[in-house]
């Protein structure tokens, strides 16, 4: 079944196109990474899918329904971010009780075990939690609600390294036990890439790349070699990223199927894979130039 369908989806916010005609289809029961720079449109897309924000033009369907203010979407999808707020009068224990009443698939056992594991106190107030603790608590709600579609927007904000690791493991184990659709946005692709099945790379409100994680890992190759030899080879091919290292050496990233790779190999240049996180940065920086250009 198609989980999400976007066709030419556009969202204008204060005169800017936060989403600029994006088109893609997501299928059910996958863990999908939503990757992009700050302001690329990740949050906007997620809030539209969750039904909080209204699309400006184009169509968007979640569970074959238009999500904005849609009760079915609201009951079957949950959006978790660090802005989640609750009434000041409710304790953490109250919040879990309320969540249980609202979400039909709520996993009380899981919620309680995670609550204890992360040493939360039922009488604490949500407002009084630190940023990382808030994220951890919100994550519990996101997982235990067991919604058909779970949207995690930068779920690990403020969490320390060990909690982040626990989170990804909890997410994966729960997903294995109860396969469902999970979309996670993150700055830390290197942290989540293992648990992802596919990624959507968005940049400037457009879907830049939509691939399986394995394809992304084989998308490009990095070549490093002497500038005077490598540079002429790169003239006629698509170069994703290029930088000079030290005196007379160049590092270039090209598509994995590029003929340059074979040529470079014959020259004895070092050829290696490119980490997905770096690749995403290179891909989205391509048109803007890097920070180095600022100092030219």
């Amino acid at each position, binding site marked *: 079944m198609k989980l999400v369908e976007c066709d030419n989806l556009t969202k204008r916010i204060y005169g800017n196109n936060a989403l600029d005609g994006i088109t893609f289809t997501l299928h059910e029961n996958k863990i999908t990474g939503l990757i992009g720079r700050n302001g690329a449109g990740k949050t906007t897309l997620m809030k539209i899918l969750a039904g*909080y924000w209204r699309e400006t033009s184009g169509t968007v369907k979640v569970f074959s329904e238009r999500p904005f*203010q849609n009760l079915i979407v*609201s009951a079957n999808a949950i959006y978790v971010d660090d802005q989640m707020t609750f009434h000041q*009068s*409710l304790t953490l224990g109250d919040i879990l009780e309320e969540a249980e009443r*609202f979400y039909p698939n709520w996993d009380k056992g899981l919620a309680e075990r995670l609550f204890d594991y992360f040493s939360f106190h039922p009488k604490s107030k949500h407002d009084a939690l630190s940023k990382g603790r808030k994220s951890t608590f919100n994550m519990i709600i996101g997982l235990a609600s067991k919604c058909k579609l779970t949207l995690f927007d930068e779920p690990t904000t403020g969490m320390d390294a060990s909690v982040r690791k626990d989170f990804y493991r909890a997410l994966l184990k729960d997903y294995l036990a109860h396969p469902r659709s999970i979309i996670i946005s993150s700055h830390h692709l290197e942290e989540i890439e293992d648990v992802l099945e596919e990624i959507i790379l968005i940049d400037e409100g457009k879907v830049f790349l939509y691939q399986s994680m394995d394809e992304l890992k084989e998308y490009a190759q990095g070549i490093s070699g002497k500038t005077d030899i490598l540079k002429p080879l790169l003239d006629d091919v698509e170069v994703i990223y290029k930088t000079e290292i030290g005196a007379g050496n160049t590092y270039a990233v090209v598509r994995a199927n590029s003929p340059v790779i074979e040529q470079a190999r014959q020259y004895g240049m070092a050829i290696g894979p490119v980490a997905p996180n770096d690749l995403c940065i290179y891909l989205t920086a391509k048109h803007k130039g890097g920070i180095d250009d600022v100092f030219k």
Partner: protein
Amino acid sequence: MSLNRVNASDIVKKQFQYKLKAYVGVFTSLVVVQIIALIFSYGGTGGGFSSSNGIDVRYQTYTVDNVIVLTSLWALIHAIILTTKKDWQHAFPFVGNSWTNNLSNILLLLFASIIAAVLTVLSAFAIRVIIFHFVNEDLFRSYTFFLTAENILSGWYVLTFHFFFICAIGYFLGTVSRIHPMLPILVPVIMIGLLIVFEQIHQGFMIEIATFYYEETNPALFFVKMVTTSTILFAVSVFISNRTEVRT
């Protein structure tokens, strides 16, 4: 995993229960407001002195006017608070949409109005007890000293719709204010400005409005006037807020 079907009335019910829990503060503040109002009422709300044929009469009236005024203010403020961006967002971590959220808010306000009316009527008893025991004067009681069942019921009936009406005004003002950041300042200015202008164009305008609603002696007509006006105000609020986005 199949889709969970939900119906709106079930969600409204759940949200109402959720809000009863979340807004306990509304009810504790009601109690505080009423106690403060009773303290103010202790001195009496009106009085005078008259003398004839060598008999001096000093009279003092005790009413629950203070309680009604302060409770109305309480109703207005809480209705506005429900519509603020922060409180509006509190309703959205869980299942719901603007429609269910509005309906459960209105239910909460209706419930609060009923409770407020009950407490206000009770405060009328309280003030009588206080005066009877603590006002150290010879008391000539007026004929309204003893409340009849009819007094109590009609008082409760009128006050419930009165508070609900005030809530509708507050909810409306709060919702309108959310359309643009400038409006929370502009709306009260415009409202007061309009009242002044109307008053200048047509003397006694405000009194006529008050008379229209509060001098109505037919209970059924009173009900129609109050409920119709409240419904219109709520309907406009719902219409506006159903179009606004949440969780910004």
